[in-house]
């Protein structure tokens, strides 16, 4: 930082060459407290102020130096001109410092070969508004230098055409807040990350705790016990039936809860050769798969066994049916077969049957009639004698006929009887073969069993699953409590960090209030509409256009009734801009932030009415002619409106001891630039000019 005495107090002479509207070289005497620049539009007034702004701040706006800063040669036929030669432009401001030393600021740029980064004014004292020269990368330093230059320009130069750029909201570079309360690079990202942590923790904590909507715990285990009790007989039956399944050796009589059921299921799985320790749904699935698998395998086994016999069984059943049909037919034909055969057959084994008798009779009737029995022989002989007596009456022919008849009736019956016996034997054999068909019946029985097994298994699984669900809920609930406790602790810490970071980086009320008060005091001098004052500055953080990780700490302008910048009229915006410029410029007096005491005001009469023009003139007189040396500024004012300018000239006439110069831009030539008529405005009597004049004035005024 330069010493306070090195601050430039006044520009006494400006030399401009080939800069914007200035063709050739012009030297202008500006050695006065106030310099009023007048003339029509396009005569070079703004170019002069821009030259001064450039040489006092090094800020060239957002312009490309070559195409916009360099004076243009006139083009022909309305075509744009070319830069005036290739030797660039030159600006020199000669002045004196607060310590009354001579100081020359010079800026010379040559093309080709000069880019934006090389614009440096020789002799310019360093300002504390500029960022430190040793931080960050070269690119960052260059960018920050530009940002600093913009701020110095905003604090000393007002251009009506760029009035918006006077405000933090619109400007691109550093702000006074950045100077006094710089925020570290990336602070927004860090805070944003911390806020993200806070938000996420809050979201997690706000999640509702797990809820149990099922049966009460006691009822759960009662259901499980009942389900197991129904399942167990089926399980035992399966264990007894299944040929290739190793059931557990000892199944529990009862299971009291899911843990017991889990243990049983694991033993079942272990017995089945599953060594992995499953839990929860997987255990249930595995258990179900093991039981169902055993059932399925048994069914498959029986089914496979039955499948090979099924065709033969069918054939046997058909054969048996045929045999039974034939028996039925014989029975139908000879309903009294056995009785008939018994009637005509021998009563006892070895005795002749009826047909034999009749055949004997037919053969031996005559001969038997001649047999004589002695009297008194045994009773049998008597009976036989009686029979013979009867037989003697039978003719041989008659007996033969009878024998024939009996034979014709008896023979088919004897054949049928024989056939029935054969059929019976064969049917016995077929039935025996059919006994093997019991396998298919077993399959049917297995189907019934499976249905029952699966039904009880499903009920068991459901009860077991509900038990697991309840255990999950208990575990989840315990986990939730632990998590929330932890997250609350983490949230407290994260929130604390955010708060601390905010506390340490927030806009200090001190600077805000100071700037607000100072700007408000200047604005108070204007005739503002109701609701505008007091002015409010609202601290906001923005990103730099070229560096999203740097934070611009701005003060956004709000009127007392809440209107933002965009809601203000052009005149109000100009007044606000002037108020901010003047108040901040004066507020920084003597602190080393400003390296000069010059204020440049372009086109000042454009936005003011006659009433405010007077107030404005008072303001400029206060600044240019005031008694406080530290707060006095050399003021350059340009105005193009003739009536207003003349009026302003009257209002700005200096008092004795102060000086004012009038620069009238009366012509502009494409080849030479502006023609300037320079004059000094003669001061009127000042308060320090002697008591006589004042006494006379007092005397006259008293008479009114």
């Amino acid at each position: 930082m330069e010493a306070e005495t090195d601050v430039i107090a006044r520009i006494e002479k400006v030399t401009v060459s080939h800069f914007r509207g200035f063709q050739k070289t012009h030297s202008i005497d500006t050695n006065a407290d106030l310099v009023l620049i007048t003339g029509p539009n396009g005569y070079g007034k703004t170019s002069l102020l821009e030259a001064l702004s450039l040489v006092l701040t090094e800020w060239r706006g957002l312009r490309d130096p070559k195409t916009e800063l360099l004076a243009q040669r006139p083009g022909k036929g309305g075509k744009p001109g070319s830069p005036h030669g290739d030797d660039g432009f030159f600006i020199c401001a000669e002045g004196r410092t607060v310590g009354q030393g001579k100081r020359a600021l010079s800026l010379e740029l040559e093309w080709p070969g000069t880019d934006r980064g090389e614009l440096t004014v020789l002799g310019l004292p360093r300002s504390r508004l500029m960022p430190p020269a040793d931080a960050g990368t070269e690119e960052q330093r260059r960018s920050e230098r530009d940002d600093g230059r913009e701020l110095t320009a905003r604090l000393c130069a007002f251009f009506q055409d760029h009035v918006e750029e006077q405000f933090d909201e619109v400007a691109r570079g550093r702000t006074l807040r950045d100077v006094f309360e710089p925020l570290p690079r990336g602070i927004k990202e860090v805070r944003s990350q911390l806020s993200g942590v806070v938000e996420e923790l809050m979201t997690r904590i706000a999640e509702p705790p797990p809820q149990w909507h099922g049966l009460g715990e006691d009822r759960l285990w009662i259901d499980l016990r009942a389900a197991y009790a129904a399942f167990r007989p089926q399980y035992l039956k399966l264990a007894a039936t299944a040929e290739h399944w190793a059931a557990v050796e000892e199944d529990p009589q009862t299971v009291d809860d899911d843990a017991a059921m889990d243990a049983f299921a694991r033993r079942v799985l272990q017995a089945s050769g599953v060594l992995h320790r499953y839990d929860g749904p997987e255990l249930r699935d595995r258990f179900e798969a093991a039981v169902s698998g055993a059932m399925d395998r048994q069914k498959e086994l029986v089914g496979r066994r039955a499948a090979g016999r099924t065709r033969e069984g069918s054939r046997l059943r058909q054969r048996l049916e045929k045999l039974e049909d034939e028996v039925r037919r014989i029975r139908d034909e000879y309903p009294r077969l056995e009785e008939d055969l018994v009637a005509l057959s021998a009563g006892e084994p070895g005795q002749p049957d009826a047909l034999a008798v009749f055949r004997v009779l037919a053969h031996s009737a005559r001969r038997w009639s001649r047999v004589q029995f002695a009297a008194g022989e045994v009773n049998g002989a008597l009976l036989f004698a009686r029979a013979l007596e009867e037989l003697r009456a039978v003719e041989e022919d008659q007996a033969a006929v009878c024998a024939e008849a009996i034979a014709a009736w008896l023979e088919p019956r004897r054949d049928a009887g024989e056939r029935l016996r054969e059929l019976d034997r064969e049917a016995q054999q077929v039935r025996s073969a059919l006994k093997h068909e019991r396998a298919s019946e077993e399959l049917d029985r297995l189907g019934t069993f499976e249905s029952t097994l699966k039904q009880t298994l499903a009920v068991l699984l459901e009860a077991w699953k509900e038990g697991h669900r309840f255990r999950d809920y208990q575990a989840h609930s315990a986990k939730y409590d632990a998590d929330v406790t932890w997250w609350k602790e983490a949230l407290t810490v994260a929130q604390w960090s955010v708060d601390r970071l905010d506390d340490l980086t927030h806009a200090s009320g001190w600077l805000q209030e100071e700037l607000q008060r100072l700007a408000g005091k200047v604005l108070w001098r204007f005739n503002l509409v109701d609701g505008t004052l007091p002015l409010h500055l609202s601290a906001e953080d923005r990103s730099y256009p070229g560096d999203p990780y740097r934070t611009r700490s701005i003060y956004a302008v709000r009127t007392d009734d809440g209107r933002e910048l965009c809601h203000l009229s052009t005149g109000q915006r100009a007044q606000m801009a002037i108020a901010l410029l003047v108040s901040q410029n004066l507020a920084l007096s003597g602190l080393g932030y400003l390296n000069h005491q010059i204020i440049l005001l372009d086109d000042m009469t454009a936005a003011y009415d006659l009433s405010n023009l007077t107030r404005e003139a008072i303001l400029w007189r206060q600044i240019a002619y005031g008694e406080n040396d530290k707060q006095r500024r050399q003021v350059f004012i340009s105005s193009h409106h003739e009536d207003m300018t003349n009026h302003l000239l009257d209002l700005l006439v200096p008092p004795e001891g102060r000086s004012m110069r009038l620069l009238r831009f009366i012509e502009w030539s494409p080849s030479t630039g502006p023609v300037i008529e320079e004059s000094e405005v003669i001061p009127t009597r000042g308060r320090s000019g002697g008591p006589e004049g004042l006494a006379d004035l007092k005397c006259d005024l008293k008479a009114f």
Partner: protein
Amino acid sequence: MTTEKTDWLDFLLVGPDCRDLPAERGGWCREGIWLSDVALVVKVRPTHKCLTGEVLEQTKQALYAFLRRVSQTALEHDFMRPVACVIVLPADPAVASGRLGEISRAMRRWGADQEWHRGAFTLYSEFDSEPKFDPERLASDRRVLDLLKPQVTPIEESERAVRTLETLIGSLTNEAETRGPLEQSLVNAVIEDLRAYEAGHESEAGKFSISRWKWDHLKPPSDTQPAPTGQRQPDSGD
């Protein structure tokens, strides 16, 4: 205050009107006329007649004539200054919305009436005690003094706390030391990220530190260890 008072008196050209007002002053009376190198300030106070509306329009005409005459007289004595007229309205908030409010609005209209003043002077209307910036001084007096000798107080740097990245880090570290290990771990992460941003290593800042802290502390504790929360040591440093 002594100096200000002295200045105030030094600037005074003419004090309040005497009791016998000129005929044309039916609507207002003079409180004083001051002159500085900045401005010629005339302070007037509307009379009862004016406030009751009897002579409002005549007052406007008379005031214009008076201010022009003052201005011309000053010019005749080679004092060329902008003229500012401060009109003092009695401070009575109860009537501000009534007749007095109407007078006040009329004064504002006069000030904005360019056809009337033609830029020859500017008007400020002030209530007698409107404590805006300086409660110890009447608003009208404050206005007069501001016109004659404005003061803008420079920013008091002694009130300013110097803020740099290092001071910020120092403050954070100091505060974290009085807290638990969890706070310290997060502050360390914040500092690490800030330094990475400052050095232009944004990608590193985005990947580590706070993100890592978040990763460590947002996952449920039950996922990392079954111990109760109270036994947990989050800043284990692993």
